[in-house]
């Protein structure tokens, strides 16, 4: 395995924007601060910009700027603070509240203020960070009854695309809700678009998949439980549950929160291992490195289980090496954390 390649640390500025009450802070706190969906009802409106630095894997730092969406703030982002806010942006995440009455793409008698604001922000981004990636989220989908969801998503996507200017062909639009796994799907793709050198990690996973004869191996980031990458065997590829990765993120994250509530421990590593043994499959989730957990699904049987345990154990060393290469350039973050 090729592990000698030096991976440089990357810092990415992530702008989180959208109208007040759209759900920006809710999402951020669920994904990065381990809040659960029912607790975010208590969040207050964000004043100005709330910056938070999160470390995602060894070599990726995300500077998340949660920009309070009240009109006065938005106004100042687009004027006096323009270059400060829109300079050097890696990703813009724009959140639309699906219930917002200000989103009608100019239909008669209705306001399209939400889209207008979006348009202005796109223009500012085009000026200061033309290479930024854009993700738009149509949020609070749980408030739309099931039978209307497809139609709502289709028409909103069209309206958003029409206002996206030069970025139109590159934006990703996701329908989300804090109440289900759609949140993890959207944020998984956002963060994945930022991870450098995934190929090295993927090689390591392939090795693990081969030795454990697993149908599936999935790597998760330890704090968010977003999927970093995954490898499946031919059989694993046939699993009809196409949404299983974001579901796993949601399931494991939820359980992790429950366990940390029970142990009241602040350590971010809430469990060492999670095993399910059934007559159809075996499943192990194990801490792999400081930054990751791995999930391995393989054929049933007690002997198989013991074998896989040993193989995961030895993979730990291998991955620690991969990660330490990546962490070589990580010293300034270490200092920062010490403060």
């Amino acid at each position, binding site marked *: 395995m090729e592990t000698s390649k030096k991976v440089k640390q990357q810092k990415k500025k992530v702008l989180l924007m959208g109208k007040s009450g759209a759900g920006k802070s809710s999402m951020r706190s669920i994904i990065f601060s381990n809040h659960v969906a029912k607790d975010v009802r208590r969040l207050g409106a964000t004043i100005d910009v709330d910056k938070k630095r999160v470390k995602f894997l060894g070599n990726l730092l995300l500077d998340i700027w949660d920009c309070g969406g009240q009109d006065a703030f938005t106004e100042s982002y687009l004027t006096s603070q323009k270059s400060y806010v829109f300079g050097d942006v890696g990703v813009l995440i724009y959140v639309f509240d699906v219930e917002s009455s200000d989103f009608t793409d100019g239909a008669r008698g209705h306001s399209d203020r939400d889209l207008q604001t979006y348009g202005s922000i796109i223009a500012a981004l085009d000026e200061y960070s033309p290479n930024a990636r854009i993700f738009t989220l149509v949020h609070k989908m749980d408030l739309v009854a099931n039978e209307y969801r497809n139609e709502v998503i289709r028409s909103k996507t069209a309206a958003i695309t029409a206002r996206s200017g030069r970025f139109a062909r590159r934006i990703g639009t996701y329908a989300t809700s804090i109440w289900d796994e759609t949140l993890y799907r959207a944020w998984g793709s956002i963060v994945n678009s930022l991870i450098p050198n995934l190929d090295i990690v993927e090689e390591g996973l392939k090795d693990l998949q081969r030795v454990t004869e697993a149908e599936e191996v999935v790597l998760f980031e330890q704090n968010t439980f977003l999927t970093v990458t995954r490898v499946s065997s031919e059989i694993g590829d046939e699993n009809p549950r196409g949404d299983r990765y974001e*579901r796993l993120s949601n399931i494991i994250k939820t359980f992790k929160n429950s*366990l940390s509530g*029970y142990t009241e421990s602040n350590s971010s590593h809430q469990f060492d291992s*999670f095993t399910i043994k*059934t*007559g159809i499959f075996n499943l192990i989730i194990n801490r792999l490195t400081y930054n990751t957990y791995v999930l391995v699904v393989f054929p049933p*049987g007690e002997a198989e289980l013991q074998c896989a345990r040993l193989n995961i154990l030895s993979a730990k060393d291998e991955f620690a090496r991969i990660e330490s290469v990546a962490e070589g350039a990580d010293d300034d973050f270490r200092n920062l954390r010490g403060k």
Partner: protein
Amino acid sequence: QSLLPPMGFGKHKPKMLLMGLKRSGKSSISNVVFHKMAPHETLFLEATTAIQKQNVMKFMDFQIWDLPGQIDYLSSSLDSNSVFSDVGGIVWVIDAQDNYLEPISRFTSAVVALTELYPSIRYSVFIHKTDSITEDYREDTIRDVMQKISDELFDEGLENPPVSYFPTSIYDHTIFEAFSKVIQGLVPQLPTYETLLDTVAASCRFQKVYIFEVTSKVYIASDTKPSDLSSYELCSDFINAIMDMYGLYSWDRPKTSSISPMDDERHQDVGAQTVEAMVCSARGNTVYLRELNAFLVFIGVSKEPNFQKEKAMVDYNIQMFQNTLLRVLDRG
């Protein structure tokens, strides 16, 4: 000395009624507890207009009737005998964030009327929607409801009414914990189970042990140590995680043709295996789950740092426990 026959015997089905004014949350409760509805989805529920009869617990023959709020249960037009005969327990839901004086007097007059005709019915009052009362008022509200009810019943001459109270909300575990207690009141062999569970907890050094009904996450018995909501929450979330992951990976895999006859045999053996799961936390807590039959699982929470080393002993003890339990279940 239960009045109910053993579970699963004969045509007799123990019955539980869910009662209360409309919009108090009855349908929400039964959908969240027994049909896995997410709490926020209950906002879409429409008013119940007819009695809903449901066979909810698979481990014993047992029905829950959801009675619509607008029916006057005690009016003569209703064939009250068909509703109230066989009833083991009544759960009365009171919306605690609303004006609760009317529901309280409706409840107490129902108790007064029913006690005469059906003296064996036990009542559980769910002081419901506690999530939407601010914390400062929550305790006061709960106490006030309890006080008012017992005062009114006392005035009616009922000094020790068979009423218990549970603060509940569909947004947290309280509703499941409350239902667990209510249902345990209908399980005739409860003392036997508890003795068995006490033994197993002692021999495997578990902090707390439960028998859960998997689909509802109601626990039908636990050891007799004081009940502890945080362990319950952990176990119930553990079941959730396992069931959800099981749903993702229990699909029908294509049979590989290269399996030799010997392998085939081995696989059959494996196929008969019971589900077992375990999570070990960094702090030395372990949660251990084992399937008992199609509906019931055993769960134990341990704080033994050496749990994993002694797992063979635990497995053996649990196997013994399972054999005994299944015999009790079979006997009914």
